[in-house]
């Protein structure tokens, strides 16, 4: 199915919660209202003819100039062989978004990573801990304004 058509189906189902279709990215993206992401994802997985079987990738992005954070979901259907990108934009000072772990269990670790490196909080996540960095690490390194620490415990870094 063409991404444009998928956008059409989503707009029909969710109305104003589907904000924008961005064709220039690869694969083309759909910007979704933050609060609706879990419902949209469930529909994408279970909806007729959509069958988005797997979450290829989930990335957090710091859009500092716009005062926002973004979470980007790259979805893919092995049954229908189509792809799409779903995006949500969050408030940079208080980034919160619903988890999609219940839709694709594999999202668990990706969300933990986005939490660890960017400080995005996934509401409803079953086990939101740091994953790559030590548990007592301070700050979120992939933020654009991250200040590099001089010391970690007794070591110079």
């Amino acid at each position: 199915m063409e991404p444009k058509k998928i956008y059409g189906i989503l707009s029909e189902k969710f109305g104003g919660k589907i904000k924008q279709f961005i064709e220039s990215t690869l694969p083309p993206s759909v910007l979704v209202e933050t609060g609706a992401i879990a419902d949209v994802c469930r529909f994408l997985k279970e909806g007729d003819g959509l069958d988005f079987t797997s979450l290829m990738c989930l990335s957090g992005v710091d859009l500092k100039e716009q005062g926002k954070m973004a979470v980007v979901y790259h979805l893919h259907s092995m049954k229908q062989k189509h792809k799409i990108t779903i995006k949500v934009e969050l408030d940079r000072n208080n980034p919160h978004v619903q988890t999609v772990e219940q839709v694709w269990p594999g999202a668990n670790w990706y969300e933990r990573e986005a939490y660890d490196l960017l400080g995005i909080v996934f509401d409803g996540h079953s086990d939101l801990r740091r994953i790559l960095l030590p548990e007592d690490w301070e700050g979120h390194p992939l933020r654009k304004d991250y200040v590099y620490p001089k010391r970690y415990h007794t070591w110079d870094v």
Partner: protein
Amino acid sequence: MTKADEKFMQVNMGPQHPSTHGVLRLLVTTDGEVLSGVKPYIGYLHRALEKIAERVTYPQFTPFTDRLDYLASMNCNLAYAMTVEKLLNIEVPRRAQILRVIMAELNRISSHLIAFGSFSSDMGAFTPFLFGIREREFINDLFEIACGARLTYNYIRIGGVSKDIPGGFIEKTREFLDYFPAKIKEYNELLSYNAIFIKRLANIAVISPDDAFDYGITGPNLRASGIKWDLRREEPYLIYNELDFDVPVGKGEMGKTGDAWDRYMMRIYEMEQSAKIVRQCLDLLAPGDYTAKVSKVLKPPAGEVYVRAENPRGELGFYLISDGSTKPYRLKIRAPSFANLSIIPKLARGVMIADLIAIIGSMDIILPEIDR
């Protein structure tokens, strides 16, 4: 810990356990020999590659991709180069494309040889590991001829490859391809169809197709579950659409489809197919440019792409955002082993401790790519 948990014992497996394939720590909750839960702790090899990417230029990041999956550096170079080329709209010359396929497939063979060898040593058979290393040495020599390096090649660059292959490479590769099939037969006789080995692996840790989708399992582990999905076929890149090769899938020959034996055997089958691909590519190789004309300073237009390639361990994806400057704005690396490892807590519930080793070995994870 609640009162009910008190009969369980918690043991750390790793971070330096020989069967964890690197520095992986598994916090194992056991009831005697039976596992009631496994919690992986990763990050011991975290080098902040995604942060580094934001501070170096596009070509400067290529050597870092060598350090993702160091057993398949060529494939990682390739995926990164394709991502940046997509953003820059670079057309890669045909000779370079064929050279890339040759290197990627040779590297797939050498990576699977390590998978085969290390898995057998996990299972208590030491000799196959030496066999695997012996044949891999041949491929390492080939790569040394082509680019001078034996592990981190930095050979596939943005626009093409770093230099053309010198004389003698083709003859040596043909020599390897003639020698290799007999060795695969040897592996099968020695290990694959060994009764003890089969008993050890058949029906262990079956991954159903739905679980594989849910957790984003890719590569040989996905195909072992009976799903015919290979990016080289489904979304052909380079010259894969001109080549004749099969995509092997698990059939449950020794037990259920998607068990540990199927996952192991996928790699043996794939080595045969890769050898077939390399042979065809050698025939197709005609004189031409080995790289496109790429300017010294790369400034891709603002935009974003997500590009993936079929690596020996699954789909390696790069999500790249460019803001029009010489450095990436954001580079997210989607490593296949990261997804493949995330299913282990689910698979390892209620199995024996010894089977946990079989599960990890059969998934063929590699830690530097998980931790990045």
